[in-house]
């Protein structure tokens, strides 16, 4: 973008703008585009979810506004805008007002590091992944503000639950990502995506694998367990069923949003759906290779790249379109799974949620980190690191050994953990009584 703006300003119009002006303008333009994308995603997702879940329930879903109900979200938005904004008399006015903003703003930031296609990452930070999660943790503050400022017991309860849940589930999410970061050795999202070329086996692990853009992380045991754990944690962070406890409408009405109405409520809604989109997107990025897919790399190689400055720009566009298509397709597929889960399951109780996170997911992801170490050892380390014995196996052999080993470890861990967890859940009546023995009558 910088180049384009620079070209337009300084070459075409010959304005002689300073470098920082050009940067500022180009960043503003990117930001504008992203800020437009976010609400549109939200509008689409609400429609998509409602139609999908209706189908799962043998209904039709909204189909009155526009063709097949396409403009239903627009109608909803109009409704939101025209509703009266109610601030409870006892509420803290300023905090009440700021809370939705604090919740929405970080979700917008998170778009900054999302790779839409080859060479289409708004900002390629070398700590992009960390940035993504650091920023997402800010919205917890907003939730807390909302719950506290509303001066309502349900709101406060909801905010406490929301924050406790977000903070708790960040840990398994991070731990499952840690395994991936260990394998790639980079926090940069672009690097992680780049790593996932190949065909079921990453070309970074085994050189010479045909690069069809299918060397995704889910295809190895470490990545798969990390993916499962991460997706569960993402459900919890995005407050989706079965972890939609903070806004459990059957218990605490609407949680921290209880006292919000009109556009402020709309902002919470926006933040939630954008966050859901982002979580699906990041799942697709990290475990499913984002824009990686058959054909993208080949097309991109023909376009203008740092390696190939003489390429044809049209191939860039083609690769971009195809990559964005793959990326969005994967993202929406994950959103489909989210909706599917919402259609099928009841929700957990708040203590069960905490138990699940702390007693099940975290140990499981820790085991996965161990598996990742084995994976890295077998695939990447040589004699220097003490893995000389693996060298004679050759690339493919090392990969196979790592695959089998980690698979065995992970499956064993899953079954053992599930059984232990299941046993702790099923406390017998006598044990319960033993807990309470010697109580006052």
């Amino acid at each position, binding site marked *: 973008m910088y180049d384009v703006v620079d070209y337009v300003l300084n070459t075409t119009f010959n304005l002689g703008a*300073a*470098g*920082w002006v050009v*940067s*500022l303008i180009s960043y503003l333009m990117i930001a504008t585009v992203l800020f437009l994308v976010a609400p549109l995603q939200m509008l689409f997702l609400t429609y998509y979810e409602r139609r999908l879940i209706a189908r799962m329930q043998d209904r039709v879903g909204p189909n009155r506004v526009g063709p097949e109900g396409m403009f239903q979200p627009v109608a909803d938005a109009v409704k939101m805008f025209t509703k009266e904004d109610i601030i409870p008399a006892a509420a*803290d006015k300023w*905090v009440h007002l700021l809370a939705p903003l604090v919740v929405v703003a970080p979700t917008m930031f998170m778009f900054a590091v999302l790779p839409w296609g080859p060479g289409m990452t708004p900002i390629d*930070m*070398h*700590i992009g992944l*960390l*940035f993504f*999660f*650091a*920023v997402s*943790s*800010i919205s*917890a*503050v907003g939730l*807390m*503000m909302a719950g*506290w400022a509303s*001066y309502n017991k349900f709101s*406060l309860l909801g905010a*406490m639950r929301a*924050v406790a849940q977000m*903070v708790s589930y*960040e840990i398994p999410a991070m731990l499952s990502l840690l395994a991936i970061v260990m394998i790639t050795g980079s*926090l940069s999202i672009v690097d992680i995506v780049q790593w996932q070329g190949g065909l079921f086996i990453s070309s970074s692990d085994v050189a010479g694998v045909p690069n069809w853009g299918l060397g995704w992380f889910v295809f190895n045991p470490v990545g798969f367990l990390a993916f499962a754990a991460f997706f569960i944690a993402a459900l919890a962070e995005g407050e989706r069923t079965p972890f939609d406890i903070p806004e459990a409408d059957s218990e605490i009405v609407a949680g921290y949003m209880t006292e919000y109405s009109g556009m402020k409520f709309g902002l919470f809604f926006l933040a939630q759906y954008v966050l859901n989109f982002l979580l699906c997107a990041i799942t697709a990025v990290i475990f499913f290779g984002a824009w990686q897919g058959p054909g993208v790399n080949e097309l991109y190689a023909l376009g203008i790249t740092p390696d190939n400055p003489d390429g044809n720009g049209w191939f860039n566009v083609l690769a971009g379109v195809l990559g964005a298509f793959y990326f969005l397709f994967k993202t929406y597929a994950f959103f489909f799974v989210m909706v599917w889960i919402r259609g099928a399951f009841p929700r957990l109780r708040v203590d069960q949620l905490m138990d699940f996170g702390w007693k099940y997911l975290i140990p499981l992801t820790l085991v996965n980190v161990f598996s990742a170490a084995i994976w890295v050892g077998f695939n990447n380390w040589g004699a220097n690191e003490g893995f000389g014995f693996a060298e004679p196996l050759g690339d493919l052999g090392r990969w196979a050994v790592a695959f089998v080993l980690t698979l065995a470890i992970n499956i064993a861990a899953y079954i053992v953990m599930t059984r232990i967890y299941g046993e702790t859940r099923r406390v017998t*009546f006598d044990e*319960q*009584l033993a*807990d*309470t*023995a*010697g*109580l006052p*009558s």
Partner: protein
Amino acid sequence: MELLIQIIFFLLAALILGAGVMVVAVRNIIHSALWLIGSFFGVGALYLLLEAEFLAVVQVLVYVGAVSILILFAIMLTRDVSGQGERLLFQRWWLALLVAITLFAAVITPTLLAQSWNVVPPTGPIEPGQPTGIAGALELGRGFVHEFLLHFEIAGVLLLVALIGAIVIAFEERNRRRKVLTLAEEHELRKRREQTSDANASESALSAPGHPISQSE
């Protein structure tokens, strides 16, 4: 570019200082905590301006995302939720100011004295021999496990101790823990107590609520 960075720097500095003053100036303790978050955030942005991206992100992750949440939780759980209580420190603000200035001076004076000013910032590629600033994740990681291993370990032990301490404080012994009995537990307990206490208590048990009914003699 320089100008832009300077403008941004002053804006950020104003934000940090202003927020810091508001932390001690506002009466409502929740507002105070929220201003603190603002201040943390400004510091994070400042790191970004210094091109220490990793530090900036960690600042946001740790301070804004975790520490401030803990602070808010602590305030909300320990005080009246309305947060309208008077703050004790507010009465002798000049004393607090004095202490703050002294402490700040104690920290900043050696820095100011030892600093050699007007050094031309390094431009161009860093030469191999020159020590690089620790800003990236990789360097930081290497630093932790090589140069600063002892510090790292000590910090880890400290955190562990803190963790255990927190558990000890929060843990209540089982028999002192308040537990609300459910109906079934209460019933079972009563039944057992009746069985053990007296075999011929059947008469008094007649009028006890929830008397077990002899179903099939």
